[in-house]
């Protein structure tokens, strides 16, 4: 071992001690390279998910069934774009640019939440996304509010506030649909049937199969395990479905008095893998839409840059 190895070991020990003492890591603090890389991966994936997530909901923006619903949906999608922007900025504090993150998304190197590879087929899907998908996201994100990396934790606190409004509006759409005409009820049930299992997959693999979990827990990036968070979500959501008088598509779903939790069926991980690999109904469209927006918008960004430079040099000449 030479002196630089000693030094590194000391730095790592001091870092772990700081994390253990629940102190926040800030951008200028020393951090292990793997910690930095893990956060870049996780935070950029989170940012991409917000932005790609605008697409399935945007799919119904021009068809929202009342002007009030259209307004609420537009505001919600705008929030998500804002979350994306905020998260990209937070990720930039780790030394990666937004353009680099876009390149990684467009090349397939970076992922976004696989839930957005599912299509929105009827209006109740907009309700189901708010109620279930945003509900699952909040469950994850509340845990992240205590994440060891300061900028991420602070972003989560702010984002959670808006997400809870999103979830409420989603549930309200579901309630209106579930209490509406027979056809609306069918749409609501159909949406729940399609979104339930993919939502449970959002919490990631079972703890026994989760590759990155142990290290992330040690670094306090992650505070609760995938299975714990999933259970928490199921426990909170089942009574809400009962209140709507809708049926969750799981024959094994049952209250377990001993555990004081709901038991539920096994997730079809083959489907999960297939969709992650690109075989979902909308994988291609989602990525293509982002690539086209970015590549198609290059001339606009170039023009803005060229104009800013011209203005700068005119100012310099005038001075």
């Amino acid at each position: 071992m030479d002196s630089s190895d000693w030094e590194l070991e000391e730095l790592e020990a001091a870092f772990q001690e700081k994390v253990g003492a629940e102190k926040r890591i800030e951008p200028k603090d020393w951090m292990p390279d793997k910690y930095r890389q893990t956060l870049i991966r996780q935070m950029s994936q989170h940012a991409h998910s917000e932005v790609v997530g605008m697409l399935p909901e945007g799919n119904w923006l021009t068809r929202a069934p009342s002007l009030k619903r259209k307004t609420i949906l537009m505001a919600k999608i705008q929030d998500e774009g804002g979350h994306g922007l905020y998260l990209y900025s937070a990720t930039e504090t780790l030394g990666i640019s937004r353009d680099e993150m876009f390149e990684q998304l467009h090349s397939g190197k970076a992922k976004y939440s696989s839930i957005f590879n599912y299509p929105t087929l009827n209006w109740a899907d907009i309700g189901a996304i708010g109620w279930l998908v945003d509900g699952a996201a909040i469950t994850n994100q509340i845990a992240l509010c205590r994440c060891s990396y300061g900028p991420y934790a602070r972003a989560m606190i702010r984002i959670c506030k808006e997400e809870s409004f999103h979830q409420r509006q989603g549930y309200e759409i579901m309630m209106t649909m579930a209490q509406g005409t027979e056809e609306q009820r069918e749409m609501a049930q159909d949406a729940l049937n399609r979104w339930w299992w993919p939502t449970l997959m959002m919490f990631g693999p079972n703890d026994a199969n989760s590759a990155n979990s142990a290290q992330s827990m040690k670094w306090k990036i992650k505070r609760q395990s995938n299975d714990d968070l999933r259970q928490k979500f199921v426990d909170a959501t089942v009574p809400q479905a009962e209140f709507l008088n809708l049926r969750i598509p799981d024959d094994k779903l049952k209250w377990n008095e001993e555990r004081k939790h709901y038991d539920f069926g096994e997730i079809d991980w083959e489907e999960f893998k297939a969709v992650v690999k690109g075989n979902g109904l909308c994988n291609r469209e989602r990525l293509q839409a982002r690539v086209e927006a970015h590549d198609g918008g290059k001339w606009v960004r170039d023009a803005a840059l060229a104009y800013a430079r011209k203005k700068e040099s005119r100012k310099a000449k005038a001075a």
Partner: protein
Amino acid sequence: MTDNDMLFDYLLRLGDNSLILGQRLAEWCGHAPMLEEDLALTNIGLDLLGQARMFLSYAGEVEGKGRDEDRLAYFRDTKDWRNLLLLEQPNGDFAATMARQFFFDSFQYLQFEALARSSDERLAGIAAKSLKETTYHRRHSTDWIIRLGDGTDESHEKMQRAIDAIWGYLPEMFDMDAVDDAMVADGIGVDVTALRTAWDGYVNDVLAEATLIRPEDSWSVRGSRDGKHSEHLGYILAEMQFLPRAYPDAKW
């Protein structure tokens, strides 16, 4: 037409303008050239939707037949829509969207400024609120006209082409018919012909700064005040009105 019918029609024109342009901007959602513009376009779209709801709700009350904002938005066919032809034109590329937005914002700014002095207090209130929003919209679209016009060769060419392509839809903004005349006579509405000089002045200054050429007035298309539209409106309505039309008994 009674005075009441005329006020109803006048309010529809204002509401339909905001709604159809807002609907067009909604089409951009998630597809803008940069995330900041996704936010800006939805922001403007939200303002326009809010304006539309205020104008259409008021229109429904004036009409007195129990039609609310949604009944008016979702259950009228093309011939009953009063939005300017300019606003139903497709988004095209970002330059085309900004050209449409800029010429309308520049007009709407002046119209709301005048309408804020309307003898109809409710209308004046809506206009005063909308004027604040439109001030921001106009600044946003003006900045883009200048950036794209005086940006790169490619953006300059695209911007000029976009302006040339919609130029003939602009004169309709300054038309007056019997409804407009009656509203002006009652002190409710705006004499839009009187806005022309100020509009020309503003637009000419911006185009000059953007190094863009103001096209010749060689063509003009009109008809919206009589419910005559381009073929685009039918598709906008088909998409927008689909759910309430398909399930007329449903509440959403």
